[in-house]
């Protein structure tokens, strides 16, 4: 197996560019690649005009809120932004575009992107404003929405343990959108709280196999101990 270990700086400068679509893992704080995000925020002039695909907008002052505040993001595709009133204001003021998608369909669209499935048909959102403007397909007398897949240029995800080859494992509720995002981007940067020798994760228990992963970088300490 290739050794995919590197630094945050090398990973980001190699793969991330202004104007890209980034998938960012996490639900609440679990699975959020805080260290990689911090690097993007600390080098704001190099990483602008981004489209972010992330479950939520984090809380003010942490995670992707750093990028939202600094004007590095043109659009956020999410499922829930309720814990970030600052972003809600930015959205309502038209500073940043926001598209909201039901959470399970958000995950399915990303999975479809990763699994080479151009679209799924679903009844989720029928009879609500979510269905407005979407293509439909009639099957067995029922109307279904056509939900095209989503892909990104780079995935930024935080695992609890990764090996040097890029196999990754998540503790507790930290897995959330991380695994599926790791399948659906041209490049995948796994930020890991702990990095172990290749072969030290049990092969049956790996959540994201290394073949999906480009590089593994060490997670720094959580940046919001003071919050």
């Amino acid at each position, binding site marked *: 197996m290739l050794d995919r270990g590197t630094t945050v700086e090398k990973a980001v400068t190699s793969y991330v560019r202004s104007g890209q679509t980034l998938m960012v893992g996490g*639900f*609440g*704080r*679990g699975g959020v690649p805080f260290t990689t995000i911090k690097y993007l925020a600390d080098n704001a002039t190099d990483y602008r005009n981004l489209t972010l695909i992330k*479950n*939520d907008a984090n*809380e003010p002052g942490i995670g992707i809120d750093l990028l939202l505040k600094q004007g590095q993001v043109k659009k956020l595709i*999410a*499922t*829930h*932004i*309720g*814990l970030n009133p600052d972003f*809600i204001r930015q*959205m*309502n003021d038209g500073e940043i575009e926001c598209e*909201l998608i*039901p*959470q*399970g*369909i*958000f*995950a*399915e669209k990303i*999975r479809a992107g990763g699994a080479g499935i151009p679209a799924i048909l679903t*009844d*989720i*959102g*029928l*009879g*609500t*404003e*979510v269905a407005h403007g979407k293509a439909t397909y009639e099957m067995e007398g029922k109307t279904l929405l056509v939900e095209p897949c989503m892909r990104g240029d780079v995935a930024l995800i935080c695992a*609890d343990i990764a090996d040097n080859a890029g196999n990754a494992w*998540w*503790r*507790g*509720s*930290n*897995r*959330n*959108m*991380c*695994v*599926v995002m790791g399948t659906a981007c041209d490049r995948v940067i796994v930020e890991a709280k702990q990095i172990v020798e290749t072969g030290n994760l049990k092969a049956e228990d790996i*959540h994201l196999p290394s073949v999906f992963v480009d590089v593994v970088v060490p997670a720094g300490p*959580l940046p*919001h101990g003071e919050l």
Partner: protein
Amino acid sequence: MAKRELTSGEHTLLERAGREVKHGMVVNLGIGLPQFLPEHLPANTDVTFHSENGFVGMGEGNPEGTPDSDVIDAGGRACKVVPGAAFFDSLTSFAIVRGGNLDLAVLGAFEVSLSGDLANWKIPGKLTPGMGGGMELAQKANHVLVISHHLDKRGRGKLVPQCSLPLTAPACVGTLVTERAVFRRIDGRMHLASIHPDFDRKSALEGINADVPTPDVLEPWEATP
């Protein structure tokens, strides 16, 4: 558990709602009042709680936990898990919901229409948190139980002829429980089903500006022993 002192009315409605929960069910709890349901379940009701951010077997709140804990519920609250719990990703979490394996979703509401439409995710221009997993929970749980104070601060009930707010899902609410009454959807229309002993038919419909069918024979409020 969220830090909050419950009122006696809240205890009443939670206890009544608890009797809608059957042994062995897989249950998802929305944010707010539904999170207090576990401590109001009848004794010996073994229920598996589903947390849509990625596990089943959610246990009680973890007082030592922080938002950085590795086990949090969908509202960001640190919690414990019971033996037999399983962690998974968002895909499996919603496969459980859409695939028919979630027996009950207990949700809050802004409005419930007479036909069982639910609005609980958006107040245009005022509240735009996003739907999160709410649409799937409302549309695909095998049963949707809405729990709510009978009247809001302006004296209005939740049951309305038609929702004025954006829908979470149409025709999805099976049961509405307040501290005064239980309403059930029968043949596509919400009916009065039970009244708390302290209230009469009139007060069970107070604040409800809708024509609610009220059968002559109602279910008892208390469980039959």
